[in-house]
């Protein structure tokens, strides 16, 4: 099966920042992403868990698959949002089917 090189960017970010991140992505021309819920986690600011949370607390994971040449634009856009905030950005090489979609 014919596959094509691409990059998979996974951004873990606070739920309150989700719209700002996706707006920034749209601004950078990135219109394809998938958002996963996060149950809990741990980092420099300690442990947390989603259970019983009241309000808009918690984090989400935004997964974005893009053509390699568009990576830098995406990272700049993402960094503008996560910069002052907690959150993790992780990039992996990947292969995709149907390259025309990315």
């Amino acid at each position, binding site marked *: 099966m014919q596959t094509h090189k691409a990059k998979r960017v996974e951004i873990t970010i606070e739920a*309150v920042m989700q719209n*700002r991140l996706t707006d920034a992505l749209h601004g950078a021309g990135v219109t394809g992403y998938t958002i996963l819920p996060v149950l809990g986690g741990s980092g420099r*600011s300690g442990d947390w868990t989603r259970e*019983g949370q009241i309000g808009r607390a*918690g984090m989400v994971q935004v997964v974005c698959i893009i053509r390699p040449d568009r990576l830098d634009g995406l990272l700049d856009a993402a960094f503008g949002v996560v910069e002052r*905030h907690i959150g993790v950005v992780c990039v992996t090489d990947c292969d995709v089917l149907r390259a025309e979609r990315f």
Partner: protein
Amino acid sequence: MEGIIALAGANLISPIVLSFALGLFAALARSDLSVPEAVAKGMSIYLLFAIGFKGGVAVASHGIDVTLGLSLLAGVILSAALPLVAFALLRAMSNLSRMDAAAVAAHYGSISIVTFVAASSVLEGRSIAYEGYMVAVAAAMEAPAILSALWLVARGSGGRKMEAGLWHEILLNGSIVLLIGSFVIGWVTGTDGLAQIDSFIVAPFKGVLCLFLLDMGLVAGRGLRGGRHVLGAGALAFGVIMPLIGAGFGLMAGLLLGLSTGGVTLMAVLSASASYIAVPAAMRVALPEANPSIYLTLSLGVTFPFNLTLGIPLYMAAAVALTGG
């Protein structure tokens, strides 16, 4: 005095307070008891809808009080002014940074709708009437405090502007929209509307509140377990003193406005309570450098339980004494 103690005692052994205590105990004992996020959110939607609706119906049947507008204004002023008091107090009493102190201050200007709900439930239990529009006052007090806090930070560091989108988020946040919206629905449909749905929003209300407070206890307990290290003695003391100060301002405002005994109580309760939904979310966006453990632990782990157990009966007793009601 004895009256207050009896009142507080009766309040302490109500199912509502004990459910909170159970949640607190379970979290501190590291039980795996937990309420799913979706269920907690479902219950909060129910509570907001019910309290708003009932407030609207009360306004529909008792008519608009001339003091409605003034009460809203008083609420906005209290919400905007209390953070300044809280900030000064925190800077004096604790060693929190300017940023952390401002973030905490925002929470104490704003309000806790669950504390409001618990207080109105206690009032209803003792058949003390209150103005139905206090629900609208609660909604009006949610946001101004945030502005004050951002001003406090901006004054210090110079020029932190408030992002455009944030205003929209704060003013149209889910709880405000639901509270005001159901208030309007209650107002428009009146007692006829209530008759259609009262076996949903009136009869089971207190029971749902118990389960909701069970979850609040769990969340507060988890917060205390994680957050107790970040709070010094000064900050902890603030968590008990500030609601008393807030309540004092609220009582005064209520008396000046000439509210009923129940209304004065609720004004005190609103001023004494600290936000843990709208303001934390706004702070994560506007002041991400401020440590959420500090403000959540203080608001939810210290002030909320204090108000729920001792504060509400105390403020009610004061309101009864002062209004002679």
